[in-house]
């Protein structure tokens, strides 16, 4: 049963709820249920409208959950590692290891689905499990990630927030008995809400979900996603304030030649992105393959390594936002910043590959910020008069790594703009991001999320492949029209004569296109022409005899898929210019399209 009773696609259940059969006897309903049914009929809202209202509710719930999550992480951190910026040595050494053991136990015994960052799991819910995410996963993700991140594992809270939002949305969709299609769509709505609250950046969250999770900009989904993201950010800002994640210093382009420096940052970012991606792709399957009881001790081992590193480089622990702030204000020398970036790559690779649940967004931003600040610091030494503040480079660096490592170029641009609130930084951001993205595209075949999903045995659609893939168009399949084109104003007899005198005798055509002065096209077969003559209508205009017949018109830029759907029984269809419907560019038949698909390189 749909949300307000009218639902045409039912007969299947989502989740584990049984579906009432049409032949089942009428169930005695409570007075309350009857009142609800009556209300439904009175309101009679469309499911689409309710979906949008539900999106707001999802945003509110997700925002509240993420607020609690962020508070939980902070309390865990202060409770386990102390409130000092640089925790004491005993805590740093012991806490990540012991907490890693606890996290492993919780994950294995109670919450097996909480492994991973959350992005791949959300995508698998959308594409494989009809939007189903058990609520137990949300609870488990909350507890385990708060413990893992708060105890110092080098992971971030954003990806888990995305999955928690998707899980909340999935629960609401199931409980409110939405159609299967809507339940599948609702997970990305929750995902956007969760991510928006975590980042405090609604636009970046919306763009990320569209760019990486669903890959489509359809109006219905976009509206719901935007509503949910906005609602969740309102809630998040209500409780946690509207301060940005970082205090970004003022930025201005000192000299246009400085854009070359940002291009250098783009190259460096591309290389580091590759390094990070390769490290993860290499390490994760090997650690997973250890087997036995390794699942219990691997997170603890990763915690121990991070703890030991944390004695000298405490910046690699946790999400690292506070240290990014310091890098933006020029606290560290460029050599140390490089060390921090590399150390964070190693720490995050270990944390993530060990099976500790948590996200990669924050570590990616950290690595980018350190790298950017390092490049900025080095540029300051080489060209002090044409280099802006180091903080600007750190900011751009964050976006660069996002674009290069996660392969979400649009999201990275919007994220930097939202985080900095400074539009003047857009030019360096675009240049640096584009270069890093292209380098990553050239040397890393698959984006990291696709790699991770394949490692888990899932064959999820790649949004990047969908974006980059060349759709077959009508112009790829069409051929010139060699047969005579008839005019609707000509008589039938004249038309027959025209076909006889202009047709290629070696490949006679039986079906002819008829062009109307209004730009309309129709078709007529040769036997029909002769029948008109036999009926004594040889002098009648062809157009008058064809009635309202209308042949679908195609344009060269339209997808071939559209041509196939319009083809029906017609032997071929006209392809006309968009500027002049009377100008025939060519014709296309079903076999032309199929041949074009066969010719298309894979």
């Amino acid at each position, binding site marked *: 049963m749909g949300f307000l009773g009218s639902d045409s696609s039912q007969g299947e259940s989502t989740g584990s709820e049984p579906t009432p059969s049409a032949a089942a006897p009428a169930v005695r309903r409570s007075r309350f249920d009857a009142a609800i049914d009556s209300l439904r009929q009175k309101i009679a809202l469309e499911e689409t409208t309710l979906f949008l209202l539900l999106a707001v509710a999802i945003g509110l*719930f997700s925002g509240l959950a993420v*607020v609690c999550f962020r508070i939980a992480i*902070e309390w865990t951190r202060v409770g386990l590692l102390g409130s000092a910026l640089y925790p004491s040595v005993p805590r740093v050494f012991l806490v990540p290891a012991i907490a890693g053991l606890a996290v492993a136990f919780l994950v294995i015994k109670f919450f097996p689905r909480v492994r991973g960052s959350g992005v791949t799991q959300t995508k698998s819910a959308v594409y494989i499990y009809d939007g189903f995410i058990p609520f137990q996963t949300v609870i488990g993700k909350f507890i385990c990630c708060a413990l893992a991140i708060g105890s110092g594992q080098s992971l971030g809270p954003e990806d888990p927030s995305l999955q928690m939002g998707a899980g909340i949305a999935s629960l609401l969709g199931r409980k409110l008995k939405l159609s299967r299609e809507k339940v599948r769509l609702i997970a990305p709505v929750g995902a956007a809400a969760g991510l928006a609250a975590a980042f405090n950046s609604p636009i970046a969250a919306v763009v990320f979900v569209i760019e990486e999770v669903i890959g489509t900009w359809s109006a219905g989904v976009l509206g719901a996603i935007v509503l949910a993201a906005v609602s969740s950010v309102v809630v998040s800002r209500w409780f946690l304030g509207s301060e940005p994640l970082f205090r970004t210093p*003022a930025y201005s382009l000192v000299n246009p030649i400085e854009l070359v420096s940002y291009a250098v940052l783009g190259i460096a970012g591309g290389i580091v992105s590759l390094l990070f991606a390769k490290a993860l792709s290499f390490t994760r399957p090997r650690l997973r393959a250890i087997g036995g009881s390794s699942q219990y001790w691997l997170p603890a081992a990763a915690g121990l390594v991070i703890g030991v590193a944390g004695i000298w480089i405490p910046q690699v622990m946790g999400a690292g936002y506070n240290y990014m702030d310091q890098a933006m204000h020029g606290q560290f020398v460029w050599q140390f910043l490089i060390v921090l970036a590399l150390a964070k790559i190693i720490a995050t690779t270990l944390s993530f590959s060990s099976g500790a649940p948590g996200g990669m967004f924050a570590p990616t931003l950290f690595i980018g910020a350190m790298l950017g600040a390092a490049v900025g610091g080095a540029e300051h030494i080489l060209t002090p008069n044409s280099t802006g503040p*180091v903080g600007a480079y750190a900011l751009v660096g964050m976006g660069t790594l996002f674009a290069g490592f996660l392969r979400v170029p649009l999201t990275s641009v919007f994220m930097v703009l939202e985080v900095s609130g400074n539009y003047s930084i857009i030019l360096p951001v675009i240049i640096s991001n584009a270069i890093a993205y292209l380098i990553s595209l050239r040397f890393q075949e698959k984006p990291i999320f696709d790699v991770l999903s394949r490692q888990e045995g899932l064959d999820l659609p790649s949004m990047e492949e969908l974006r980059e893939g060349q759709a077959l168009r009508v112009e790829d399949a069409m051929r010139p029209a060699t047969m005579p084109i008839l005019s609707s104003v000509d008589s039938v007899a004249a038309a027959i004569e025209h076909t006889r005198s202009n047709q290629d005798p070696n490949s006679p055509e039986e079906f002819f296109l008829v062009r109307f002065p209004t730009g309309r096209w129709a078709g007529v077969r040769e036997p029909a022409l002769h029948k008109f003559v036999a009926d004594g209508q040889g002098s009648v205009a062809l157009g008058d005899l064809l009635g309202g017949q209308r042949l679908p018109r195609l344009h060269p830029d339209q997808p071939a898929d559209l041509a196939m759907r319009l083809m029906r029984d017609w032997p071929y269809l006209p392809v006309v210019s968009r500027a002049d419907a009377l100008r025939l560019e060519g014709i296309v038949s079903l076999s032309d399209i199929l041949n074009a698909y066969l010719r298309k390189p894979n």
Partner: protein
Amino acid sequence: MLLVTALALILLFVFTGFMARFYHQDERSLARQWSAKADAAMQSGDTKAAIEDYRTALIYSRGNGETSGANETYELHLAQALAASNHSDEARAYFLTLAEREPGNATVNLELARLAARSGDVTEASRYYNAAIFGVWDRDPAAQRRAARIEYSKFLLEHGEAAEAQAQLISLAAALPNASRDDAALHVQAGQLLMESGATANALEEFQRALQLDPSSVDAARGVALANQLLGGSHTGSPQ
């Protein structure tokens, strides 16, 4: 189900509200503790510890219901501690962030001027000194403005900008108080700087004013004598 959902939302709102309230209270308390620790470290001269503690205070003060003034105080103290320990670039970054938020903050502009002066950038230092002199001071604005002008004048004199220094000192002298004996020292100081800048006649006036306020001032008398000598005049003044 709708009712259950609405109830769950309300309950979650209330729960989150309590959680957030305790969280902000904790964070504010931590910010104040670390700030107090940093202040103590600064007073004892341990700037390194002070910097670390101010950083920590800043982390906990962000978005935690502290007034914007409190946040900026932590940031200002951190920046000042950084400047005191010669972390000029980082100090400058923090001061610039503060200046962007409060362009008229005289304290911030003065610190930026000092950093610019340290690096020898006369143009930038002049800009920030002027912004400080005409900016908003939180306590005793007249005295602070006066002190800033004196500092700026000294800076100009050190960098050979005598004409600009004279202009500043003349403005300074015009605004000096003449109420009590204690004000004599200010006139003496102004006079000495005016002498240094080459405005001897103006310097003589200041020394004479100082003598009027405090006839027993040795420095004022000495200043009058010296100024007269340079001017070739016959004005004398001697302590009574």
